[in-house]
Structure formats: structure tokens, C-alpha cells
């Protein structure tokens, strides 16, 4: 008999999803009756992603878990998918769609965690500048919002956030320019995974490591190295491995008629983790094990 | 004949460093044919460009039908009934013959869409093709035509205009006798219809044959006007250059030597089933005559390595050689002066000096670096030798007059050491005085041991300069003429495929 197929469709290529893929691989080991696929659309555009989804539905998959590029406006397209197959969302939810469940974290919560790190790092207050790839993207907005909410009323201030269009050269250049433009900045925040390493490098080259605090997101090796070294205050990570692993297992169960793992509102939050010097060594070991390296 | 509908009064044109026109006054009457002559750079084309609305004069007045103005635009000139055949061709390679002739005046279908009525277009082109009896169709792409054929297209374009005045700037410079005859007949026809013609040429016989009046320009000034009866080449020449000319032919110093080039059964793309064989000897000037499209240029291109051979072989001093690229020909001392200087002869934006040194740049270089001083020095030498009219050898070639541009093309090769020189229409657009200088130069080169193959459509030139003539007809040699057999009649008979 043919195995049923479950697909995990992401919103674009990135290292982040490699971790989720590892989770899916682990789930595959425990779900021998299913064929688990992991799909990258070639561009992070709603139209491109929709086409991948349509092609999968046409090919008759049993379930799809998707990180929608633009969930607000893709609702209709997602509903079309949900009508023909089991649909989960991940990473960013489309609450108005007919998806069965959402599994992921809340970017606003992650931002709040980062805000707490900033408050801890700057007990006397200070000016902070953030760096991000796409300023308009939902995840960026929510993270920034979370940070602002937490630091509101304190002496810590987020004065500016610079975007770089996911161009690493410009990402690094932005940090250099901000150091030149604001000599009294006291903390820098990297909102996307590659922003933190670029901040770290510029400060290192300028000899200002330690003087200016760094707060990051995600688990780039350089970020983790910086945390371990003590020159990065901490980084807030999500747990995409769990999304992939738990999500696939829940989908399989749901297909077999067991929906007990899904709460009434369909939202399953896998909380983020704050990695600082105290737990970074364990975390690195754990990552190494997950990625099989 | 008396109605003077167009008058130029005190027209001047000053370019940086050059006064091209110096208070020229000039008038045209209905049905009058004016021959405009003068040395290269005398200002003929500039004057006509002012009339055609292409160049804005620096001073003076243009009076058309009594209305005076300081300058014209192209559209105004066309509206005033002035048609213009430019010296340098201005055609659209991507359009066909009919499209080029009627560009800007396409017959339209009724309706607001301005759709081209292709049927009527065809119908309008046909009489023009017949009038000049050309050998190509209305739907041929102009890119596929030879230079002379393009020249004919330009002429048809002007004839189609229903103009009051047709300006022809050296229309015959690449035509052979047959087409020239036909053109002169057409001019007679225009005149009979009351159309005026201004006709620029360096072939003074043509002026004698068709002009009612000859105007001579020199250094931007009118130096003389001859009425019909007074027109004679010798008189014109005296006015133009201020001295008399000797006869064309200069006999060789010694009899021709060994064969330098052997063309053996060579076939080319247009006539793949016809083969050409001929040889050129050291010290000999071999003229190559033929009608438009007879394949002379193609033969030259094949020998020079521009086009691949379709068959046959080429021997240089007895050794079979394979020439895949012009660079290979040049390395062996085979040089070509192409007929189309604008497309293949010159880099119009480069300076005179840079154009002259281009084929032999390595010899102006120390190590890998070009020594500009050496280039300039040589360019100045060539300027004196060929009398190139320009104050500065660093000016762009594109600003020179047509004839002076041609001299730059010659200078390129004369600065080097040729074994075989192929001239494709060497004196195209060159004035009589300079022609004489060039013929002397050819002879001196030949006497120094160079073999010369001279393709020419100028009958006078072929007969006057060659030591021997080969005539081509439809891609094959139809015969050779020795000096004692030279005559216009014999060349023409061979050119149309008869024997003599």
C-alpha cells in the first residue's frame, strides 16, 4: 500500500529551517507508515508558495504544515488547501483560515524576552539601535513591538531600527554607520539571525566588545560563540526542531482520528528560550546532537 | 527658368577651428541643374546640409519663395520641397527597400489607426525601381544590399519625394558607368518636369554632361560660376585647385615582376557556382572593373579573410595560404581599403592619429604601452603626404569631410609595408587634385615592388590608372584587357558578359 505523504512547506530558504528539518527527520524515524517531505519555495513570495501548495494538493498529499509567507492575505489560498487536505500552520499563524492547528512561538513573546535581556544588561538605561533584514516583515514587526512593550517606561530606549534587505554587506555596513553616527549608543540588537554576528564582528574590529552590549535572536554559531565568550549578553531562540517533530507526529495522529493533542483554539505554543552564558554550553551540545554534526 | 525660388545669402558655418562656409551666396531657379564642385573639405556638403535643415548655419539668410529665415529644420526643408541624398548613406538596415524609400511618407489605409497600406506602397515603389532599372526587389532587406545598391536606394528615396529641388551629394561615387548614365537621364527627366537639381560630384565629366550651371567652392567660398557652355573639366579644375592637371596615366618604371598573388578558382557566397582566377604581379596595378553587384567586393573580402572561401585557394608568392581573419592577411602584407569607410574603414569617434595607427599599433608601442607622440608624429606625416585638411590630427575622424575621411583610410595602410594592396573604390569621394596625388602614390608604391589590385567603378580611373584590367560579370572573370585594348567600349562589353 502507498504510504501517506505529509509535507512541511517553509516560507523561504534559511538555516533556521534546517533545524526544523532535523525535527521532521526524527519524526520520520518514528512514523514508518508516512512519507515526510520538506519543501522550500524558491522565493519568499506568496504567489510562489501558493503554487507549491497547489502542486502538492494536486499530487494528493494527506497533510501539509506550512509557514505562510503572508498569512493575512493568503487566508483564501490556505482555505482552498484546507478543504482538500489536513492543514497545520507553523511559525506565523493564519488564525482566520480553516487550518486545524498552529504550532510555533509568538514573536511578540520572543521580543519581550529580548526586552528583558536589555533591561538586565543596562540597569542604568541607555540608547539602543536594532538591525533587521526586512523592516516590514511580520516577524520583525512583532519582535520589535515586544521589545518596545517591555522597555516602555524604563530608561532603556530603542532609538532606531535599520533594515538591510537581507544583504550581509549592508547589514555589516549599517552597524558601522550607526557606530559612526551615534557615538553614545550603548546596546545593539540583532533581530534576524545574521544580524547579531555582524554586530559582533564590527564591535570586535572597533575594539568595543563589552563596552556596547549585544542582544541577539536565533542560534547562529557566531552568536552562540559570543554568548559563551561573554561579549554577547544573550540570545532568544525559538525551537523549530520541536515544531517539526511535534507537528508531524500530531498530524499523523490527527489523520488516524486522535485529535487529543490539539487544544480547542488550535494554538500550540512552543515557547522560546533565552540563551545566556549560564546555559549556552548545554544548548550548543544539544544543537550539535540535533544537527548530527 | 527665371523663377528663383530659393536663395542663400551670405551663409557662414564655423566649426571650432574650421570655417567651413564663409559668406556663401547661391540661388536656384526652377528646373535648373547645378553642378557643385570643389576640393575635399571645400564646404559642399556643409552648404547642402544647411539647405536640408540638418546643419544650422552660423550666419546668413535662407530665402524660400520670398520668405527669409535664419535656418531650417529637416521637416521644414521637406515641406519646402527639398529632397536630399546624403553623402554618407543614412538607411535603415532593418527595413526593406520599399520601407526605406517611403519612410516618413507611408501610404495609409483610411481610418485613425494609421495602418500602412502595403499594397499601395508596393505599387508606388515599382515605377521607381524601373526608373533606375535596379536589379533588386522592393522587399529585400537593405542590410543585404551592396554599397552601390544602397546608394541607388537613397537616390530613389529622394526621387520619390515629388520635390522641387533634389540635392544629390556625390550620388555616383560608388556607381558604375551604366547606373551613372541612367541617373543622368533621370536628372534630365526631372529638369524637364521643372524640378531643380543640385549635383555634387568629383567626376567632372558628369557636370559637363548635365549641368546648366557649375558652381565652384574653395575653402568655403564661391570662387566661380560657369554657364552651361563654359563648363569644361579643365576650367573647373583650374578654378578648384588653381592649377592644371597632367594626364592620369603614369607608366611603370619597369616591367612587372613575379606573381605576388594568385587567386585560384575562388568561390564566394553570392555566386557559389562561379569561380574566379586571377593573378597580380609585383609592380603591377591591376584594375578590376564590373557592374554593380558583379562580386568584386566579395572577392576582395574573401582574399582579406572577412568572409570564408566557398572553394578554391589563394597563393602568396607561390605559397598556398589560408586566411581566416584579416589579421592573418595583414601579417602577410595583404591590406584592404574597404569601399564603405563609415562601416568598415574608420572608427568615426576615434581621432585621425588613432585611426591611422590602429592596424599597426604594436609598432607605435614601447613594451605594451602606446606612445602617443609617435602616433601623432606619423599622423602629421601622413597629413602632409596626403594633404588631409585638418588643423589637428587629434580631432575625431567623423568631423572630416568625406574625401578627407577617405584619405585617412588610405593613410592607415600607407604607414605600413604592404606586399599586396587591395583598393576597393580607392578614390570614392576624393577630389580631382587629390586623386592625382593618389594615383602618383599608387604608381610609386607599385614601382617600389608592391602589387596593387584596384577595384573601381570609375571608368576614367580604371582606364587611366591600370596596367591591366580584369572585368567581372556575375561572379566570374569575363575577360582581361591589356593596355593596348583599353577602351570604355571594351570594358563595358566585358562587364555585361559579352566578349571582345
Amino acid at each position, binding site marked *: 500500500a502507498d504510504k501517506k505523504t505529509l509535507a512541511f512547506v517553509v516560507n523561504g530558504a534559511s538555516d533556521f529551517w534546517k533545524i526544523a528539518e532535523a525535527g521532521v527527520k526524527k519524526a520520520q524515524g518514528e512514523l514508518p507508515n508516512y512519507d515526510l517531505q520538506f519543501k522550500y519555495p524558491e522565493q519568499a513570495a506568496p504567489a510562489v508558495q501558493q503554487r507549491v501548495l497547489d502542486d502538492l494538493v494536486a499530487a494528493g498529499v494527506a497533510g501539509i504544515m506550512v509557514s505562510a509567507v503572508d498569512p493575512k492575505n493568503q487566508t*483564501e489560498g490556505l482555505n482552498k488547501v484546507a478543504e482538500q487536505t489536513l492543514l497545520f500552520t507553523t511559525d506565523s499563524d493564519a488564525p482566520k483560515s480553516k487550518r486545524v492547528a498552529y504550532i510555533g512561538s509568538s514573536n511578540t513573546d520572543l521580543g519581550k524576552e529580548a526586552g528583558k535581556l536589555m533591561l538586565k544588561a543596562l540597569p542604568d538605561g541607555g540608547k539602543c539601535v536594532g538591525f533587521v533584514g526586512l523592516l516590514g516583515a511580520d516577524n520583525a514587526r512583532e519582535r520589535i513591538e515586544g521589545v518596545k512593550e517591555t522597555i516602555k517606561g524604563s530608561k532603556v530606549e530603542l532609538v532606531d531600527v535599520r533594515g538591510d534587505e537581507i544583504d550581509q554587506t549592508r547589514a555589516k555596513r549599517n552597524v558601522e554607520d550607526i557606530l559612526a553616527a551615534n557615538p553614545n549608543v550603548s546596546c545593539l540588537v540583532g533581530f534576524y539571525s545574521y544580524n547579531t554576528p555582524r554586530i559582533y564582528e564590527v564591535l570586535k574590529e572597533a575594539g568595543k566588545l563589552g563596552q556596547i552590549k549585544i542582544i541577539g535572536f536565533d542560534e547562529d554559531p557566531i552568536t552562540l560563540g559570543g554568548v559563551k565568550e561573554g561579549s554577547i549578553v544573550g540570545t532568544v531562540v525559538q525551537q523549530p526542531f520541536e515544531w517539526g517533530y511535534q507537528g508531524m507526529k500530531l498530524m499523523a495522529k490527527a489523520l488516524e482520528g486522535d485529535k487529543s493533542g490539539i487544544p480547542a483554539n488550535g494554538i500550540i505554543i512552543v515557547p522560546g528560550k533565552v540563551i545566556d552564558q549560564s546555559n549556552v554550553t548545554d544548548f550548543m551540545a544539544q544543537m550539535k546532537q540535533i544537527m548530527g554534526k | 527658368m527665371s523663377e528663383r525660388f530659393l536663395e542663400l545669402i551670405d551663409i557662414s558655418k564655423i566649426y571650432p577651428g574650421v570655417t567651413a562656409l564663409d559668406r556663401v551666396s547661391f540661388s536656384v531657379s526652377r528646373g535648373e541643374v547645378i553642378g557643385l564642385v570643389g576640393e575635399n573639405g571645400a564646404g559642399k556638403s556643409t552648404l547642402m546640409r544647411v539647405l536640408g535643415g540638418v546643419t544650422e548655419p552660423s550666419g546668413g539668410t535662407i530665402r524660400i519663395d520670398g520668405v527669409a529665415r535664419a535656418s531650417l529644420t529637416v521637416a521644414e526643408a521637406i515641406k519646402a520641397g527639398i529632397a536630399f541624398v546624403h553623402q554618407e548613406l543614412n538607411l535603415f538596415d532593418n*527595413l526593406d527597400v520599399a520601407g526605406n524609400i517611403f519612410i516618413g511618407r507611408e501610404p495609409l489605409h483610411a481610418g485613425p489607426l494609421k495602418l500602412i497600406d502595403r499594397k499601395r506602397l508596393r505599387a508606388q515603389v515599382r515605377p521607381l525601381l524601373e526608373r533606375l532599372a535596379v536589379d533588386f526587389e522592393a522587399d529585400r532587406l537593405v542590410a543585404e544590399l551592396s554599397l552601390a545598391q544602397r546608394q541607388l536606394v537613397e537616390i530613389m528615396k529622394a526621387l520619390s519625394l515629388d520635390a522641387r529641388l533634389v540635392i544629390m551629394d556625390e550620388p555616383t561615387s560608388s556607381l558604375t558607368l551604366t547606373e551613372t548614365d541612367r541617373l543622368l537621364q533621370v536628372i534630365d527627366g526631372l529638369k524637364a518636369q521643372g524640378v531643380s537639381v543640385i549635383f555634387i560630384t568629383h567626376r567632372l565629366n558628369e557636370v559637363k554632361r548635365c549641368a546648366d550651371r557649375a558652381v565652384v567652392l574653395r575653402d568655403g567660398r564661391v570662387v566661380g560660376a560657369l554657364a552651361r557652355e563654359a563648363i569644361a573639366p579643365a576650367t573647373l579644375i583650374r578654378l578648384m585647385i588653381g592649377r592644371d592637371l597632367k594626364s592620369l596615366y603614369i607608366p611603370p618604371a619597369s616591367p612587372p615582376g613575379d606573381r605576388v598573388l594568385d587567386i585560384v578558382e575562388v568561390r564566394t557566397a553570392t555566386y557559389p557556382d562561379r569561380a574566379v582566377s586571377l593573378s597580380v604581379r609585383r609592380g603591377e596595378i591591376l584594375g578590376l572593373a564590373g557592374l554593380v553587384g558583379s562580386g568584386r567586393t566579395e572577392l576582395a573580402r574573401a582574399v582579406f579573410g572577412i568572409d570564408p572561401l566557398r572553394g578554391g585557394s589563394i597563393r602568396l608568392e607561390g605559397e598556398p595560404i589560408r586566411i581566416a581573419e584579416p589579421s592573418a592577411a595583414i601579417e602577410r602584407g595583404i591590406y584592404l581599403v574597404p569601399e564603405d569607410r563609415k562601416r568598415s574603414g574608420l572608427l568615426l569617434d576615434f581621432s585621425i592619429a588613432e585611426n591611422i595607427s590602429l592596424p599597426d599599433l604594436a609598432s607605435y608601442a614601447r613594451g605594451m604601452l602606446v606612445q602617443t607622440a609617435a602616433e601623432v608624429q606619423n599622423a602629421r606625416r601622413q597629413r602632409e603626404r596626403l594633404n588631409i585638411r585638418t588643423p589637428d590630427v587629434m580631432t575625431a575622424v567623423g568631423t572630416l569631410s568625406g574625401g578627407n575621411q577617405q584619405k585617412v583610410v588610405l593613410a592607415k595602410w600607407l604607414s605600413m609595408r604592404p606586399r599586396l594592396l587591395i583598393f576597393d573604390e580607392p578614390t570614392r569621394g576624393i577630389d580631382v587634385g587629390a586623386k592625382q596625388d593618389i594615383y602618383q602614390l599608387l604608381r610609386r608604391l607599385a614601382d617600389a615592388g608592391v602589387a596593387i589590385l584596384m577595384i573601381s567603378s570609375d571608368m576614367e580611373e580604371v582606364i587611366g590608372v591600370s596596367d591591366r584590367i580584369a572585368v567581372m560579370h556575375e561572379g566570374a572573370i569575363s575577360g582581361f584587357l591589356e593596355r593596348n585594348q583599353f577602351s570604355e567600349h571594351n570594358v563595358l562589353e566585358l562587364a555585361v558578359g559579352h566578349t571582345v
Partner: protein
Amino acid sequence: MNALQKKDLSLLVLIIVVGTVVALINPRFLLVGNISNTANQVGLFGVFSIAEAFVIITGGIELSVGSVIALLGVVFIDLIVNHGINWIAACAFVIAGGLAIGAVHGLLVSRMHIQPFVVTLCGLLIYRGVARYYTEDATAGFGFSSSFPTLEWMTAGRTNILNFPLPHSVVVLFVVGAVAWVVLHRSVFGRYLYAVGKNEEAARYSGIRSGRIVVSAYVICGGLTALAAILIAMYTRSISPAVHGSFYELYAIAAAVLGGCSLRGGEGSIMGVVLGTILLQVLQNLVNLLGIPSSLNFAVMGTVILIGVLAD
């Protein structure tokens, strides 16, 4: 014209060969739904590729196509969703905007004698920036509930014809293509476009007002791009101004060049441009259908184009 028709033919052969190979490997390629989807993409991309061709034929280039699609798309959605403007008025406004942009480009090129590449590169940068600033980088979309049935049906709908769901974007392309064909290949204006593109000097000597011709080409390009912007906005229903339409100018230029346009001007045919668009879209479809890793998508596209051109 003959050489061009031969070029069109060899492009058609290439498309058929690629299509046959894909169909043999995965017969789902020939499913009505798949063909209809691909046709829809061809419709969307074809309109602005034809727009680009007009400019390329005059010897110019238009690099701001993608940015214009983003800016006008954002404006269109904003007018309808946030300002409650009637969709017909919104369409008219957007198309007028496209025409105006084209006129500015044309005037800068022909009057101020700035290289087309520079003018439209500045356009690429400016319009993208304005679009992003206008929305503060937020995605503009119709949201979930809002619906404009007539507009949607007209732009993004499909009509069953002989059991084939014909996307309306294809109908639009067909109309645009037919008109463009007549204009380019049969009208005086088209003749002048080719003439100016090949030899501007000669065109001026022939009394053609080359400046006007060039401006008209950019205006047509702007108007058609605006039309495409509306179609694409209705297809994606959401526009992130930072990325929407980016690289589309390369698609358009590629389609035009594949279809026989030369960047030196004076060459190209409408048939060729449409075929070029079809080839590019079939290549995109192929990658998804044959399960080629999406990272290789671009590589496959590049390789097939190259092989096609080489085989030609």
C-alpha cells in the same frame, strides 16, 4: 521580417521540445488545471514583457518595471481598501500613473539626453523606495473579508471554454498582444519605432520626430506596466513593497531578448516576446513538476535557455 519569423519558429520548437520532455517524465504537466495555471502566469508576465519590448525596440531599456509594479500595486490596493474608491476609478488612476511615469522617463531620455539605463535605474530605486515609504514597509493586501466580485472575476477569474478554464489574464494578453502586433508590425508608428531604434540619425534626416517616438514608446510601456500591476495585484492579493515584482524587469528583458529583440534596438517581434514569456513560464512550471530541488530552479532555467539559444 523573414529572419524574425524564423527566429520565432525556432523558439516555438524549443518550447514544444521542452514541453514534450516534461510531459513524458510527468504526464501531470498536461493536466488541464496545470496548463491553465501556467497560461495564467504567461498572461501576467506577457503584458509587461510586451511593454518592455516597445522600449527595447527603440534602442532603450526600462529597468523600473518591477518597481512600478510594486508602487502602482500598492497604490491600487490602498485606493480600494483604505480609501473606498470605486475600482473603476482606481484602475483609471493607476493606469494614468503608469502613463505619467512613462512620459517622464521618455522626456528625460529624449529631451535631456540621459542614457535610458540611468533614467530607469533611478526609477527602479525611487519607485521602490516610495512604495516602501508609502506603506511603511507593511504588506498591503485585500485582507480576508473584503471582496470585489466583478473586479476579481475580470482580472483573476477564469471562463470555461470547451472545458478549458481560460484565465482572463490570457484574454488580456491576447488583446494587448493583438493590438501591439498591429501597431508594431502594421502601423506607421511601428515602422518609426523600428527606424528610430536602428538609426536615429537617419530617422531625423527623414523628418521623423524621433523625440516624440521615443516618448511614446516609454508612455506605452508605462501604461501596459500599470495594467500588469493591476493584474498581478489581483493575483497575489497582497504586496510586500520591499520585494513585490523585484527582478521582473529582468524577466521582461529576458523574454524580449529571447524573442528576438536586440538591446541595440530596431529588432524584435510581438510573437517572439510572447513565445519568450511562454518559455520562461514553462521552465518555472517544470521545476515544480519534476520535483527538482527548488534551489536548482534558477539553474535549470538558465541551462535550458542557454541550450535553446545554442541549438538555434
